């Protein structure tokens, strides 16, 4: 947690997890330094690693957004990537020559081309994604579990198919070939694609993007943690645990669910805009069902509903392809003299294995929310009480 006061408040006094502020500051500083140093440490091994880290940061944002819907509110969403697509295409259309090329009227209105700043486009994309979140949420309010999953899956596919086919009769999205020449991020006078010299340094474009994306991911984490420890966060969890009881406690289930869908979508929208700017290119194939499933696996693998766990899951699964490319391929070449199993194939194989393993051995994820009751009771009494023993004997 980056806000020590917050962690204090989140835990009642006397709890075992309420560490002293000095420790929290020290830990925060250590993590911060590590994050700052990381691209310079990995730089010598090739820019692919830093690029991988940038994508990991994007996936962290996505996983955190999906975690609001699935982890906090307990609404299974298999079409989450659609919001990523909405954000990405919003920025792509607002900051590329595509629209002005195909719509002469627009070209006339903007003779210099459409170059909306990303800092304006991100809020637009996020709001649009939130609107789509409500659009998806409204009809599925009464659905749960499998039924909800199927409808959200359909929604995700609808968005992708629209993007794929909205190139005729009017060319909005350029269809399967996607949109190119998207403006990079500009911060003040610094163009992140061609940074030149910044404050006397000459960092590479990738490193600057890394800092930008990691800061956005940290911001997303902060927002998530604060939401979780709030009145709204508790309402989400209450709905997840027992919707009828939540209603009887005076929670407006409809509004709170819609808020979960739209806030989750907002994260996707922001990540999408950054993705478009970072890549400079978007096409519908980046937003396939597989991507939704990958993001969902990150949430489940890390620890459903637990922010640090979700971040861990996202970083692990996002870095996996890069790690495989650099270990498995050379290894196979060394042993067999050629590559027998492609890294991409192996990645899917490992995803499958990891999912099965998690379900069998750690059904609550790699780093689940602590069972605070048990820990606190141990800290207080020195020995487990009857209720603790009961919970301890329960598996998972």
């Amino acid at each position, binding site marked *: 947690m980056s806000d020590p006061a917050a962690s204090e408040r989140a835990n009642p006094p006397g709890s075992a997890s309420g560490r002293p502020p000095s420790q929290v500051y020290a830990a925060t500083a250590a993590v911060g330094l590590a994050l700052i140093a990381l691209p310079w440490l990995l730089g010598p091994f090739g820019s692919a690693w830093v690029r991988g880290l940038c994508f990991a940061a994007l996936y962290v944002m996505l996983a955190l957004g999906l975690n609001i819907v699935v982890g906090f509110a307990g609404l299974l969403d298999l079409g989450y990537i659609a919001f990523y697509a909405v954000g990405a295409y919003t920025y792509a259309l607002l900051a590329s020559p595509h629209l002005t090329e195909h719509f002469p009227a627009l070209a006339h209105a903007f003779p210099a081309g459409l170059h909306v700043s990303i800092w304006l486009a991100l809020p637009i994309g996020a709001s649009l994604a939130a609107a789509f979140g409500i659009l998806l949420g409204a009809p599925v309010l009464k659905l749960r579990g499998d039924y909800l999953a199927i409808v959200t899956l359909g929604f995700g596919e609808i968005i992708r198919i629209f993007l794929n086919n909205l190139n005729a009769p009017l060319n909005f999205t350029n269809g399967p070939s996607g949109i190119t020449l998207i403006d990079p991020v500009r911060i003040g006078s610094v163009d992140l694609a061609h940074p030149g010299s910044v404050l006397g340094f000459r960092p590479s474009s990738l490193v600057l993007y890394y800092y930008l994306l990691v800061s956005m991911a940290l911001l997303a984490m902060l927002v998530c943690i604060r*939401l979780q420890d709030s009145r709204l966060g508790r309402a989400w969890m209450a709905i997840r645990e027992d919707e009828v009881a939540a209603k*009887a406690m005076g929670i407006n289930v409809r509004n709170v669910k819609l808020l979960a869908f739209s806030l989750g979508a907002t994260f996707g929208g922001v990540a999408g805009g950054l993705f478009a700017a970072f890549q400079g290119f978007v096409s519908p194939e980046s937003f396939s069902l597989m991507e939704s499933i990958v993001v969902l696996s990150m949430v489940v693998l890390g620890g459903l509903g637990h922010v640090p766990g979700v971040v861990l899951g996202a970083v692990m699964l996002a870095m996996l392809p890069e790690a495989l490319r650099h270990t498995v391929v050379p290894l196979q070449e060394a042993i067999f003299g050629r590559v027998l199993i492609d890294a991409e194939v192996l990645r899917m194989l490992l995803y499958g294995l990891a999912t099965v393993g998690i379900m069998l051995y750690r059904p609550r994820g790699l780093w689940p929310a602590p069972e605070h009751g048990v820990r606190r009771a141990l800290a207080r009494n020195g020995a487990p009480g009857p209720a603790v023993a009961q919970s301890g004997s329960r598996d998972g």
Partner: protein
Amino acid sequence: MAECLLRAGSVNKRFGGLQALSDVQIQIERNQIYGLIGPNGAGKTTFFNVLTGLLKPDSGRFELCGLPYWPSDAHRVAKAGIARTFQNIRLFPDMTALENVMVGRHVRTHANALDAVLRTRRARTEESAIRSAARQLIDEIGIGRYAGHLARTLPYGDQRRLEIARALATEPKLLALDEPAAGMNATEKAGLRELLVTIRAKGVTILLIEHDVKLVMGLCDCVTVLDYGKVISVGTPIQVQRDPDVIEAYLGRPHAALVRQEMR
């Protein structure tokens, strides 16, 4: 003497071919402990669900503190001041006991998503007020030692207590308890009885569905008996106990005939 807190009349509810409630009426005075009893399947829980907005009645008139309300949305009913517990305990099992009670404060607090993200002063003061109020309630109800435990790990009787604490956190005018003593042993029942008396002493009116006749008879000021969705008797526990219709509903016609003879 006392003013009327809840008045419901002509309540009808039909499930397909089954008339679950027909013209049920009930009138609860402020600060009463009011019992609703009847044999299995008499419609007690259905009436509860209608009253608290979980089921839509086909018709009926509802008044809380003199203000008419239509129980269409459970969350509105909770806001109006009726809090309930459930026959089969419905806690939030993977939240701590304290968090369960804190959820109960939802309806009386206002911080929104933006307040939460920005941690505004308003949100912070409200949050600590929620926490201390919940803490106090959970202590008063006698399960303070479990505050940090997940609700599902609590012993059965204490889960029932926690459900009551959570309901009280909504600051109800009327606390509706659906078989709070179900599955409790004698000690736990005695404790529950004490608890209900304390709650009443704080000015909360209680509506109680219960099978345990001893508990109802000793505790309630007034009782309504339902059978096959109809009110068959209303009165003090003693009056109801002697009502031949009630005896017939519970014990069958021969017993009722016996009582009727004696009364003559």
